[in-house]
């Protein structure tokens, strides 16, 4: 028995070795030297990126090493030129872009994510309905009880308990918080002046928990609590989620198609020369889910290493074509098809001459 297992292992190893040597030889023949790409940045798209890198390595032999150290770290490392590409859940500011040592930076949208509002309300399992104004007031501590008339009028027929609302937010800097506060800042003027948007903000009320799992765990445990987490996380853990009223007045529960719809609505209004540093929160369209956002891969416009630059552009083209197809399986929303086309056209403008 043991012997059989050992032999199986040996065979597997041998096979792997053979595969490796095969891919290695193919890369050397195709491009004259195996150059790996390195990237660093956002943790939120890491599951889909790592699937892409693995699929891409299988298909082409190009190995990409990605460290999911957070958007901030990704931007810093790209600015210093220690990685070939960065990744971020929030667009870089003009100030950050001006500090990058390698010149102008392109934002390449890859997939979309969304935030959902999850809650723990004994007796209320069906989708609670909320509007941006009510969410903002709950997270600012102005709506304090679950049976507040403003919640009750949105949820006729639901018996809401006379219970204090406990707000749970992220304590760590995160793209999730950025999307959430970007949405409230866009939709609710009072939020914009009082709290604002950012990867971490000064929360008027509530408890801070670390990570999606921290927020979800806290909400799950505490009756009367409300919090926000990533759509993918909520879907995979079957959390109760609220339907949010979008710009067209429809209550929409978060789903992959609803997020892509939001992107499609926003993409139509994009000027041809957009730099893709765009926010799609509170997007128009009857089916659009309002708390949605792109996540970006950041690359330099002028690639100083022609070989690496070509590999990077090839990979991005592959990701926007083949990669997008596998996004749904991991609960990420793919780019709308017409947008993927324009982004790929933009990849063509990257300067691969290698001139320093």
């Amino acid at each position, binding site marked *: 028995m043991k012997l059989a297992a050992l032999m199986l292992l040996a065979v597997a190893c041998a096979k792997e070795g053979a595969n490796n040597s095969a891919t290695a030889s193919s890369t050397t023949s195709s491009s004259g030297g195996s150059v790996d790409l390195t990237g660093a940045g956002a943790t939120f798209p890491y599951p889909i990126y790592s699937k892409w890198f693995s699929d891409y390595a299988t298909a082409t032999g190009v190995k990409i090493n990605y460290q999911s*150290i*957070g*958007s*901030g*770290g990704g*931007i*810093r490392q790209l600015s210093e030129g220690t990685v070939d590409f960065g990744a971020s859940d929030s667009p*870089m*500011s003009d100030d*950050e872009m001006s500090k990058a040592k390698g010149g102008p930076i392109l934002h390449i949208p890859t997939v979309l994510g969304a935030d959902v509002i999850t809650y723990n309300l004994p007796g209320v399992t069906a989708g609670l309905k909320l509007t941006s104004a009510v969410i903002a007031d709950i997270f600012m501590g102005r709506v304090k009880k679950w049976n507040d008339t403003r919640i009750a009028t949105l949820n006729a027929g639901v018996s809401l308990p006379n219970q*204090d609302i*406990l707000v749970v937010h992220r*304590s*760590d*800097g*995160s*793209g999730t918080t950025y999307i959430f506060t970007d949405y409230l800042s866009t939709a609710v003027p009072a939020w914009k002046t009082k709290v*604002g*948007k*950012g*990867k*971490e*903000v*000064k*929360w008027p009320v*509530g*408890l*801070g*928990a*670390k990570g999606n799992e*921290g927020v979800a*765990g*806290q909400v799950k*445990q*505490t009756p009367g609590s409300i919090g926000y987490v990533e759509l993918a996380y909520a879907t995979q853990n079957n959390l109760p989620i609220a339907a949010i009223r979008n710009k067209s007045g429809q209550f929409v529960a978060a789903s992959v198609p609803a997020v892509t719809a939001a992107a499609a609505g926003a993409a139509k209004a994009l000027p041809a020369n957009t730099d893709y540093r765009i926010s799609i929160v509170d997007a128009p369209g009857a089916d659009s889910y309002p708390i949605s956002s792109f996540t970006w891969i950041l690359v330099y416009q002028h690639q100083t290493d022609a070989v690496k630059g070509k590999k990077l552009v090839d990979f991005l083209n592959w990701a926007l074509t083949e990669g997008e197809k596998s996004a749904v399986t991991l609960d990420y929303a793919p780019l709308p098809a017409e947008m993927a086309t324009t982004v790929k056209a933009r990849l063509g403008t990257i300067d691969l001459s290698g001139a320093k």
Partner: protein
Amino acid sequence: MTSLPVNWLEKEKDRRTLRVDASSFSDKVYEGVTAACALVVPGLVIAIAVAVFAAAWPAFAKLGLSIVTTSDWDVAGGHFGAAPAIFGTMVSSAVALIIATPLAIGVAIFLSEFSPSWLRQPVGFLVDLLAAIPSVVYGLWGIFVLIPLLREHVMPFLRDTLHLGATPFFRGPAYGPSMLAAGVILAIMALPYISSVSREVLMAVPRSQREAALALGATRWEMIRDAVIPYARSGIIGGIMLGLGRALGETMAVTMVIGNRPEISASLLAPGYTMASLIANEFSEATNDLHLSALMAVGAILFVITLIVNAVARWLVWSVSRRRAQ
């Protein structure tokens, strides 16, 4: 008894000189290697301090003492007041010591003075094992076991049944994640350090010390109180300070249970924040230069506080041992 050979002395002399000659080179190497070890470690401490302070400098230059004195931490607004985090670090560590010290010394006294020898090893081993549990495991345990327990039973008991809610220290709603939860977790984490050092120190008290006290007619309790503990006091204080060092710097477990709210509240039931949690939470996503530098400044302040705690511990141990010597 066998008699020594006649020329024993001569031979021994030869051997000694020979050995010294042969080993002088290796002695030098040995000396060099150990000296390098001895210098590398303090060098590392200095290098870390320099790096942290250099990175923190822009924030100190721009914000000055307001980092320490103000309590408004608002990244978007450019305000970096870490007072709540400094307060939280101090309070959670103090709560931890208040809980852990009597427990740990109790364990140590039992194990060194009363425990049957067959029990001493296993109990001591299990207590020491607390130090080997990774802090993220403590954090998970905190979230899933400790916090529900505190919220459902302990907090209502303290606040309502004991009427401690009348004092500002136990007022307000019990959410679970709180300064108290952080203090309890830290107490459990600091306990093995205190108890293990105390136990060793108590065991090292000379037998004559105990016998003398008993001979004077002391009861067992009097013997421990008047003869054993005073003898071991400086060592026990050292152990407590070691536990305090552990509590001040702990990050992961505290972040998971403290509620991460940068506000100063007298109530132990209210959520709080610590310096280590603040850094852990915000560092990876900090892109703004001032924000990054402010986080480094918080690290530098934590460094200084740890240094002060260690200095105070040294001074305590020194003054206790000096008083005894007099």
